[in-house]
């Protein structure tokens, strides 16, 4: 950067940027602070200094069995992501390394399935699930989350695989490697970073999915989205407890998210912005 910037200017810009950033982050910060207050403190007016109690975290576990929806969220998001990867990897692979005239059309068609509004197929899915006894089951919801994220997974993998240089493949072929050997020994090691990024982003998306998880569960398979939504009707003093449950629900994914900023752009724009 050849542009010379005076220290004064830099300080000015920095103050402006930090003020904006803290304002945007404030609701999250305030929820964390409130989770460390007692219920009385939580409604006692604005204060950034909590008494530092952890009792809300304990209460949320003992009264509402927080661990169960948490585990459901883990199982559903990881399970659906792995299932989606198993279906998507061969497919993205074939399209990236053995493209035909129709590859682009197939990719666009896959993307178009992501555009279907969930609510338009709410009743058919509900009726199918009820018929097969899949309502409020982890199996049913895993299938659902796999389906809705599959197009994004295929697309993301495709954009990563396409960047693996073809010459390496040809070199392997010249050395007499079969397609299977190419895949196992040559391409897989090069594809691992792309697969890992896709995995990360998809776990985030599945964790935060809040339409089907709320529609298709009641208690058994309910993940954190449905669990937190059940806090929408207030029961007495519950600000601090709600904050504790919220903090625990978003913390793991927030941290994963910080590490996946770049992949987020790529995954959610279907490679249109890199």
């Amino acid at each position, binding site marked *: *950067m050849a*542009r010379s*910037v005076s220290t004064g200017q830099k*300080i000015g*810009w*920095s103050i402006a*940027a*930090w003020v*904006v950033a*803290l304002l*945007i982050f404030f*609701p999250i910060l*305030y*929820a964390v602070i409130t989770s460390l207050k007692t219920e009385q403190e939580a409604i006692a*007016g*604005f204060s950034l200094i909590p008494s530092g109690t952890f009792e809300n975290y304990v209460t949320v576990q003992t009264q509402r069995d927080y661990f169960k929806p948490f585990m459901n969220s883990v199982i559903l998001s990881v399970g659906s992501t792995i299932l989606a990867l198993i*279906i998507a990897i061969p*497919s993205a692979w*074939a399209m990236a390394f*053995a493209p*035909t005239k129709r590859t682009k059309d*197939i*990719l*666009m*068609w*896959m993307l178009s*399935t992501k*555009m*279907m509004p969930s*609510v*338009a*197929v*709410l009743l*058919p*899915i*509900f*009726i199918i699930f009820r018929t097969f006894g899949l309502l409020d089951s982890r199996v049913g919801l895993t299938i659902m989350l796999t*389906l809705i994220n*599959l197009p994004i997974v295929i697309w993301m993998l495709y954009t990563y695989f396409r960047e693996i240089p073809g010459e390496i493949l040809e070199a392997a072929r010249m050395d007499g490697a079969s397609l299977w050997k190419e895949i196992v020994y040559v391409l897989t090691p090069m594809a691992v970073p792309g697969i890992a990024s896709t995995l990360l982003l998809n776990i985030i998306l599945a964790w*935060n999915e*809040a*339409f089907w998880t*709320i529609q298709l569960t009641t208690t058994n398979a309910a993940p*954190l989205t449905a669990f937190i*939504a059940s*806090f*929408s009707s207030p029961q007495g003093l519950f600000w601090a407890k709600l904050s504790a449950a*919220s903090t625990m*629900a*978003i913390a793991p*994914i*927030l941290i994963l*998210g*910080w590490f996946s900023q*770049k992949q*987020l752009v790529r995954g959610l*724009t279907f490679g*249109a*912005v*890199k």
Partner: protein
Amino acid sequence: MATQNTRTLARLMMAPSVVVLLIWMAVPLAMTLYYSFQNYNLLTPMNVSFAGFFNYQYFYTDPAFFQSIWNTLLLVLGVLAITVIGGTAIALLIDQPIFGQGIVRILVISPFFVMPPVAALIWKNMIMHPGYGVFADIAKFFGLQPIDWFAQYPLFSVIIIVAWQWLPFATLILLTALQSLDSEQKEAAEMDGANFFNRFIYLTIPHLSRAVTVVILIQTIFLLGIYAEILVTTNGGPGYASTNLTFLIYRTARLGYDVGGGAAGGIIAVVLANIVAIFLMRAVGKNLDK
């Protein structure tokens, strides 16, 4: 140089994903279309009969339908306006030489990773609550009457929450685009005497236009389906004041047990989404040809 063998293998590798997505797309949609022509109520599942266009007539002449379309439009346009303008401003700000740029970035993108029910409930209870929220505390500090946001401005409140969730997305995409702007080009413009304002108009805006298009299209797809934020804050009310099309269909289908009416509503949601999708596909498709 793909051999016949390779091609067969490639087809086999693609088969599972194509079959799965084909079923996922065709079966439920066909069922929705079929139900939309049936009198079918989940409370009386024995009395199913052909309804002709009754469901469409019923759903599309309901005053709630027009209000929901209007609300959907306001919600999408309101959030887009806030996120695109705010996102551009914040992206430009973060792109300046500042101290702790990495941390600022992390703080700004964080809301995107907050699941919708949590985001909505934090705003509803901790920020906008008329008695205990931060906004009420600020109003009281200045001796003003606190505003009951969700009763007085229900749709606007939902817009604020959703905009908060999507602002990071717009910022991040625009920032990525901004950082790919060639710094040599910027310097050349600077040397030629272009001031900040001119550089912004003639260099930055044209460069950002593609990213803005992508932001608008992708957000629109997601914004048409806003559901959880409404469910946990206003539940669509008061009346239908904050009911969007998604929420109206959910109300008809799940709370009214009206399969036929919900299906007829679902068909227009599909049509709306498709209109947006066509533009998005064109924007993404261009990139594929490169």
